[in-house]
């Protein structure tokens, strides 16, 4: 599959952006109730060398997995609208648990308010659905720099 990003050449310079300077892969927790989005993020990130350490289908599960795997999670992608526990609450709890957590919100268009709230609560950045490969990687790398 040739994604838009490969053609722009942006990623060429940062080939393996999913690796830490030490060469270890960056471990990601994907929290999203949509299998579709989870699959897409997995695809985008795996191709760059990230390792998907775990996935969770709602905020509660996401929080539990984060605690369980801590400190072996480097990055969390957090959907906003989810059953049981929404992404903003999950983010808040994760930040309480680990104030250095790197959480990036995944939002549908039109959820500006919640994204702003998340950013003020400590989310490092956000990505907007529908996901665009280049932008996802751009925003994730800005969080990791």
């Amino acid at each position, binding site marked *: 599959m040739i994604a838009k990003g490969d053609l722009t050449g942006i990623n060429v310079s940062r080939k393996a952006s999913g690796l830490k300077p030490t060469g270890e892969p960056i471990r990601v927790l994907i929290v999203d109730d949509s299998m579709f989005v989870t699959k897409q993020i997995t695809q985008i990130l795996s191709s760059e060398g990230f390792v998907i350490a775990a996935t969770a289908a709602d905020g509660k599960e996401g929080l539990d997995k984060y605690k369980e795997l801590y400190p072996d999670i480097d990055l969390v992608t957090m959907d906003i609208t989810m059953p049981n526990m929404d992404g903003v609450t999950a983010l808040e709890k994760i930040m309480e648990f680990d104030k250095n957590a790197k959480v990036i919100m995944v939002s549908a268009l039109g959820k500006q308010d919640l994204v702003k709230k998340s950013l*003020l609560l400590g989310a490092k*950045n956000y990505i907007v659905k529908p996901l665009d490969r280049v932008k996802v990687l751009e925003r994730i790398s800005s969080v990791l720099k």
Partner: protein
Amino acid sequence: MSDYLDPNNEELLNDFFEEARIQIEQLEQNILVLENDATDKDCIDELFRAAHTLKGAAATVAITELAELTHVLEDVLDEIREGHCRVTRPVVDALLVAVDVIKSMVDCRMEGSVYRDQGVEELKTRLHNLLGDAEPDSAAPASSSGSSENKDEAAAGDDSASVLDEDELTELLELLESSQKLFQIRVFFDESALMNTIGGIQVYAALKNEGTILKTTPDFEALNEDIFHPEVYYFVASQSDIPSIRDLVSISDVTTGSEITELTEETLDRLRENKKESVTDSFESRAAGSETAASPVDSAETEDNSGAAASQKKSAETVNDKKGSKKQSQSSILRVDSKKIDSLLNMISESVINKSTINQVSDVYHQLITEFRSLNSKMENEVSSLFDILDDYPVSSEEEDLPQKVRTLRERCVELMDRYDHFEDKFKKNADDLKNSTQKLALNTGSLQEGIMQIRMVPISTLFARFPRLVRDLSHSLNKKVDLILEGEDTELDKSIVEDLLDPLIHCVRNSLDHGLENAETRAALGKPETGTVVMKAGNEGSMIVIEVSDDGAGINADKVRQKAVEKGLISSDAPLTEQEVHNLIFLPGFSTSDTISSISGRGVGLDVVRTQIEKLKGTIQVTSRKGAGTAFIIRLPLTLAIIQGLLIRSATSKFVIPINSVIDSHRILKDQIKLIEGREVFKIRDELIYILRLSRIFGLPPAKEQRVSAYEYMVIIGNEERKLGLIVDSLLGEEDVVIKPLKDKYSKTFGIAGATILGDGSVSLIIDVQQLLERVQSHSGESDYITEEAVNE
């Protein structure tokens, strides 16, 4: 792109449909404005914005066919905006067709299918052709980034310290902790970014970790609103340095650049210097109105500068407001499932009933108190007479000489007298409290009810908005020139009514255009302006909404109508009808005067259907017309269907509610004033004969036990100006607000009953269906039924 979408996100889809509806409306309305004034810049901008929004939204939910079409549409609109494409009739037509296709696409998606029509490609080509030589690829991002670049340039010339005045800067510098520096960080944002209103907060959040944010311009509240700010100033106290801050605020896809300045005491000095100069430059420009002069600078200067700064700021704010107003008004609207509101309304209705119950309980308490008081005073009297008897005991003897028993008795009597006084006070106080609370409760439930009703109210503009397009298309196809005037668009009415009002209104308007207005030549010959006028007017009249559709056309030709009605066997040729009555014939089923059945009015639906629809909404429709001058349809509707004012009546042992807007009059009449004509009971009021129905007979009610022997009957006249009947009831009980509860399926077809309600005392009462009673009186078959029924009863 579609692979990335979660197709199951119903909420997102619903949001999209709502968004699409708004944008389509925007498109349609503005295209029509554009048709009349091709130079209306705001309108073109609005159109472009709507197409752009729609395109983005469609892409989000992966409705590609729509995204593609709107993309082309956006290109055309951009060309128009840039002045490369003139707004001609073919252009407007093509745009309108595009809007229609967009509507169909959205409708299909709502039904779960996808719009596929070969016409779409054709349409796209048609739109493309409008573009001419212009580059088809969207110029939108380019132009928007272009404009932000312009802003950058313009801003670069500014004095970097100018956003703060001296006082503000002094204040900020005082807030600094040791080792902290004050930075002014000016950040430019990318308008083309998705959700571009987040940027201000995102940078805020990033800076928050680097130091203390002392101030932002625009302020935090403004950043938190859903408005795009092209640039924001942050004033941060931090130990960090410029490069790391720059790094922090450079967020790809969010910010486009930044200017970072360290503000120090020297900046403050420089600021003061500059001000001094500017003051000496322009002495006469001093502003009046003093501010506190916290600095050693002479106060006149401070005034001048703070005044200037304030006015500068103000103008900046107005610009922002203007930009944000549209978005803001949209974002402050909360979408709620109407079912939720209905269930709230239902609950509050129950509360209204409960309130009445409590009210009655409270009244009972007060009666009880009065009763208790009289009982108590009776008892006191008796005790006192007992006491008196005791007093009759030999008076001569001294108190101490009285026998012990008598003394005890006397003491007990005194005690008895006061025994319940304390209780009475307490009882009274509580009953008063109850009454007060009940009154408060009544007020609260009243306003709650009103508030919830208010939520259900929508301006009629949502309905009227459909008409400019309709009239335009119709007038083109009929080749008539028509101006449509909309009045009272702010008039609000219940959402449930609005939805059912569209068809009848369309029908009336079509009727006006098709049958009412003459073509241009005829009008010219008659000395009328060539362009006909149709006015749609809405307004309130008490608790009713009045909607009028009027035209300045030919009016109803009474002779023609009469002739048609005779031909169709609707009336006998010698029926003595007033002109108004003849006009009303057009509402009869199967009536159509148009010589040829046109595709516009003659869709097999006559005005009788309109009447039925309006009556279903508990409304009335009237027509008034003057030959040669025009016709007006006047529709009257209740504000809401859920709660009505009812006249409570009793017939035999049952209570019934008659909707008050159907009650014309009530009379106490002598029994022998009721006459029999052709076996039917009638009553004569002035010169008018009114058929009479007896509720007790209609519903086969047993006569009340205590057979009243009275020479009088109570008659309620119900109906409307044209059709009325007298309803004989046993007594009138008063008016009450009642909440209509629909009857369960099994009973919903019960003749004469529109629904049920629960009265204040908790009993159930049926609501009379006035329309059905009127129909029965008019229909001949109904009459015979009625007679038989009567015969059986007797």
